[in-house]
C-alpha cells in the first residue's frame, strides 16, 4: 500500500468527525459547537504562548513521572510475584482491589493524606497506573517460554546475564504495549488528579474554560493532551519497529 493511501486511511475517521462537528457549528449556537477554525487558532495560540503552553508541559511531566514511578514499582512487584507464590498471593489481591477503586476516590484520599499539589497528583497517578503495570509485567514474565529458559539455564549463567539476555528481550514487546495502553489511561486520569487544587496544568485550564463557558478553549486544551498521546505513541511505535525487526512478518493478516 502506498504511503499516501495509508495516510488517507488513517485520517478518514478524523475528517468525518471534523466534518460532522463543522456542520453542527454552522447550525447550532457557537458556544455549544464552535467552529473548528476557532479551535485551531486556540490550539496554535496555546502552543505559541509559553504562559499557556507551560500548563501542557506541567501535565505531561506529571503523566511521565506517575507512569515512570508506577512502572518501576510495578516491575519490582511483578518480579517478586513471579519468583514467590507467597508474594503473588499477597500482592495480587491488593492490586485487584486497587483496580476497583475509582480515580475520583483516590483524589479524595490524596487530598486527605497529603499536603501540596504535586505529591497528591503523583500519588494519584502512581496508584491508578500501578495495578495495570503489575499485571502486564507479570503476564509478560510468565509468558517467557520455558524451553528457552532451560536452554539458557543449561549454560549456567549468572542471574544478571539471564535477565539481560533472556528475560528482558522476551518481555520487552509486552512492556512497550503496556506503556502505550497506560499512557492513554494516564492522560485521562491526570486531568481528574489536577482537581486537587493544581494552579497549573491542563486540568486547571479546562476548569477555567468551564467557568467561562468557553467550548473552543475546552476543546483546544483537550486536543493538547490528545496530541501528546499521539506523539508519545508514535515514538513507542518507532522504538517497536526498530527493536522488533527480527520478527517474521506474514504476508497474510491474522
Amino acid at each position, binding site marked *: 500500500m502506498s504511503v499516501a493511501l495509508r495516510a488517507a486511511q488513517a485520517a478518514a475517521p478524523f475528517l468525518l468527525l471534523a466534518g460532522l462537528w463543522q456542520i453542527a457549528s454552522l447550525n447550532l449556537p457557537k458556544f455549544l459547537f464552535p467552529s473548528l477554525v476557532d479551535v485551531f487558532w486556540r490550539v496554535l495560540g496555546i502552543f505559541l504562548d509559553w504562559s499557556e503552553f507551560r500548563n501542557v508541559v506541567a501535565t505531561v511531566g506529571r503523566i511521565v513521572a506517575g507512569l515512570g514511578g508506577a512502572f518501576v514499582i510495578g516491575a519490582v512487584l511483578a518480579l517478586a510475584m513471579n519468583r514467590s507464590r507467597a508474594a503473588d498471593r499477597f500482592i495480587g489481591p491488593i492490586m485487584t482491589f486497587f483496580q476497583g477503586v475509582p480515580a475520583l476516590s483516590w483524589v479524595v484520599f490524596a487530598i486527605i493524606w497529603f499536603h501540596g499539589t504535586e505529591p497528591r497528583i503523583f500519588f494519584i497517578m502512581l496508584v491508578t497506573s500501578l495495578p495495570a503495570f503489575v499485571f502486564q509485567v507479570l503476564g509478560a514474565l510468565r509468558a517467557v517460554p520455558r524451553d*528457552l529458559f532451560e536452554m*539458557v539455564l543449561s549454560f549456567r549463567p549468572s542471574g544478571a546475564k539471564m535477565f539481560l539476555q533472556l528475560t528482558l*528481550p522476551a518481555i520487552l514487546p509486552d512492556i512497550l504495549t503496556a506503556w502505550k495502553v497506560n499512557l492513554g489511561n494516564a492522560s485521562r486520569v491526570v486531568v481528574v488528579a489536577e482537581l486537587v487544587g493544581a494552579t497549573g496544568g491542563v486540568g486547571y485550564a479546562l476548569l477555567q474554560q468551564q467557568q467561562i463557558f468557553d467550548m473552543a478553549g475546552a476543546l483546544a486544551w483537550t486536543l493538547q493532551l490528545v496530541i501528546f498521546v499521539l506523539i508519545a505513541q508514535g515514538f513507542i511505535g518507532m522504538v517497536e519497529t526498530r527493536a522488533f525487526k527480527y*520478527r*517474521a512478518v506474514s504476508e497474510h493478516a491474522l
Partner: protein
Amino acid sequence: MSDAEISFDHVTKEFPKPDGGGLFRAVDDVSLAIAPGELIALLGKTGCGKSTMFNMIAGLTEPSAGVLRVAGRDPFGDFNWFRGKIAIVFQNDRLLPWRTAIENVEIGLEMLGVPTAERRQRAQAWLTRLGLAGHERDYPHALSGGMRQRVSIARAFATDAKFLLCDEPFSALDEITGQRLREEFGTLVRENGKTAVFITHSINEAIQLADRIVVLRRPARIAMDARVPRNASPTERDDLRSRVEAILSE
C-alpha cells in the same frame, strides 16, 4: 563404578500426574555407568523416559530416588559447578528469535565470559563448519528447520564442553548434511576425549556412531545394554540391529 564419568545408581524419577492423582514413574530404578570418552546412544519408543534421563544428567531435573553423579558430582545440586562443562543440543532448536544465527551461537560463550572477539571467531568457525557461512546475520525465522538445528548444534559445540548431551540432534537434517554431521560428531567426541550421550530414533545411526547402545523399554527400564565393537562385521551389526528392533517393536 567409581571410574565412571556418568553414573546412575538405582535412579528413579516420578512426576505428579496431571490429574493430581498420585505419581507417574518416568524413570524406574535405572543403574548405568558411562565411562570417560564413551559415546553412548539412548534408544527407546517415545514416552519411555529418554528426555527425562537426559534432563537429569543436564541437572535440569532432580531424581526422586537414587544417586546420579556426573564427574563425581550431583548435576542438580552442584548446578553451577558444571558451567562450561555440559553442552546440550535440544530436540527442538530453541534459538532466541531476537538474535541472529551467529549471536545465537555466541550465547553459551557469552555466559562463560569469553571475550567478544574470540567469541565471534569461534562462532563463525562453527557456523562455517556446519555449512552456514553466509547466514550469520539471518534471524531464526528466516532459516529452514534443518539450518536452525545446525545453528543449535553449533551453539552447543562452540562451548567446547566435556560432556555433550544431544536429543535427536540429526533427525531434522537432510540425508547428506546428517551423514556429514554424524561423522563430524563422532570425530569430535573421540578426538577431544569428550563423553557424549545422544538420543536417537534411528537404529542405524546408533550402530554407526555409538560405542554402546542402551535401549529403554516402557516403563522406563533398561532393556538392553550392548557394546558396538569398533570394527564390527556386517553380521555382528545385523545381529545387533535385529536385537534392538525386537525390543522396540514389542
